[in-house]
């Protein structure tokens, strides 16, 4: 089996938001919608204060609550674990947004642009009209994965088959790959480091791992 997951090494993330920008550029998401966000958190008390940057987005759960509630079957789970939305089926009821414990989904009701009522040249070239009025979220750049694997490339190792945010990450904090491949980089990273996942108690079995320290428990 294959299950694609994302790994974020919190020790490496510098909060530059390049992943966010790359995602917006590549996926043509409207203003206000960020499929890949980076939380900028401040921890501690003066003078012992530190900042923590946490990339978040769709966790591509093995047990996705969003898919369970979706009345239109627009939200689906692929055999490789990626959760997708069929924009042509979605009715825009926002129920999946209410069900996602990770706040990973968005819905834009009206088309709007970064500057005024008309799209900039870049927006006109990139914008996806079918994202208006429907739920949207990170899909691990599923088109790149499919196109890449069709050419024999390996997602997470070959950039052309890898999500844009991972390619763009300047510090190597983001990694992507098949967790079921024991020799793959993702499985190795997780075996050699301490990690957590968000909201484990929800029982969603998220496919997004956060490394926070070296060593194993």
């Amino acid at each position, binding site marked *: 089996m294959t299950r694609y997951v994302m790994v974020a*090494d*919190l*020790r490496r993330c510098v909060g530059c938001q390049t992943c966010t920008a790359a995602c917006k550029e590549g996926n043509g998401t409207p203003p206000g919608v960020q499929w890949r966000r980076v*939380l*900028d*958190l*401040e*921890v*501690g*008390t003066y003078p*012992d*204060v*530190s900042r*923590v940057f*946490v990339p*978040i987005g769709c966790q591509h759960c093995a047990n996705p*609550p969003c*898919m*369970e*509630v*979706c*009345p*239109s*079957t627009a939200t689906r789970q692929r055999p490789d674990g990626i959760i997708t939305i069929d924009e042509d*089926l*979605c*009715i*825009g*009821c*926002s*129920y999946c*947004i*209410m*069900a*996602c*414990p*990770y*706040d990973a989904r968005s*819905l834009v*009701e009206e088309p709007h642009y970064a500057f005024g009522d008309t799209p900039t040249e870049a927006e006109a070239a990139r914008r996806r009209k079918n994202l*208006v*009025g*429907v739920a949207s979220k990170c899909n691990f750049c599923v088109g790149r994965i499919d196109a890449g694997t069709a050419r024999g490339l390996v997602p997470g190792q070959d950039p052309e088959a890898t999500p844009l945010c991972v390619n763009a990450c300047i510090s190597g904090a983001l990694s992507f790959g098949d967790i079921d491949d024991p020799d793959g980089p993702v*499985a190795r990273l*997780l*075996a050699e480091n*301490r*990690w*957590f*996942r*968000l*909201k*484990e*108690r*929800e029982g969603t079995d998220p496919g997004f791992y*956060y490394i*926070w*320290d070296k060593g*194993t*428990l």
Partner: protein
Amino acid sequence: MNTSNATGRQQNSGVALASRRQRYWDLRAAGNFIGGGSGTGLIVAAAVAATSGTPFRVPLLLGLALIAAGLTLVWLEIGKPWRALHVFFQPRTSWMTREGIVASVMIPFGVVAAAAANPALTWLTAVLAVGFLYCQARILRAARAIVAWRQKEIVGLILAAGLAEGFALALIVGLRGGIGLGLALAAGLAREFAWHRYCAALRREPGAAASIAVFGAPVARRLAFVQRVGLALIAAALIVSLAGVSGTAIDAASAVLAIGGGALMALTSWGMKALLITRAAFTGALIVPVTPIRGARPESAADGKAPALVQRHAR
């Protein structure tokens, strides 16, 4: 493979990102829950009236109209209204699909029941209506991102509130006999009990502070007070009815008590539902259980003691 630290020992402090109010379901969505609940209650009241030989067409048709109006409101809210039929695609897991299926069966049954003035069909419609209301309650329960909705006690609350609203409206449209008053009072008390249970569950939930604050705000407290006034008026009307005293003035006073009580009970319950769907609907806090250890290990992390977490923000 190592296990997540969310449930394991923690060597560095965690950080929580504050919850935020959902902004996608507005008063139109609240209108669906209001119409669904009140409509169901009215249909059940109509079925009871049909059994006792009381005219029941008006409450039955009004109940159906309220349910249809609620569904129309939610239809106006969805992003792609012309794809609305896609809502029927997922009966296996989605309570929203089930709600739609039950409604599409119930409304024609109800129309036929009203046209034929048939008590049996009215009861069948009432059973379907209760099923519809149950689906609505489960829709909220399945919304796991929203702390105020995902409580299991919300199911009882939505059912009791719907029946209470409908029985209260039934008093206004003329079902003001002893049975009607008794049902309205019983449903109102059941709603109070369900509300109490729901609030207690919410208080036990660690991430529900924002929702609790909404329900503790002056507007919610006033609604709760006025609702109890409504219940008291209905109780007074019931006492008059049970006392068997009659007379033009007494009958008029009893009717005023019943109508006033019913109106107060229905309106305040609608207000609380509007608060529940729009104002009190906060996402759960996103908790980052541990923060990264970069470079040299801080003493507190090395010796296993977590430093104090005081401040957090996100942009």
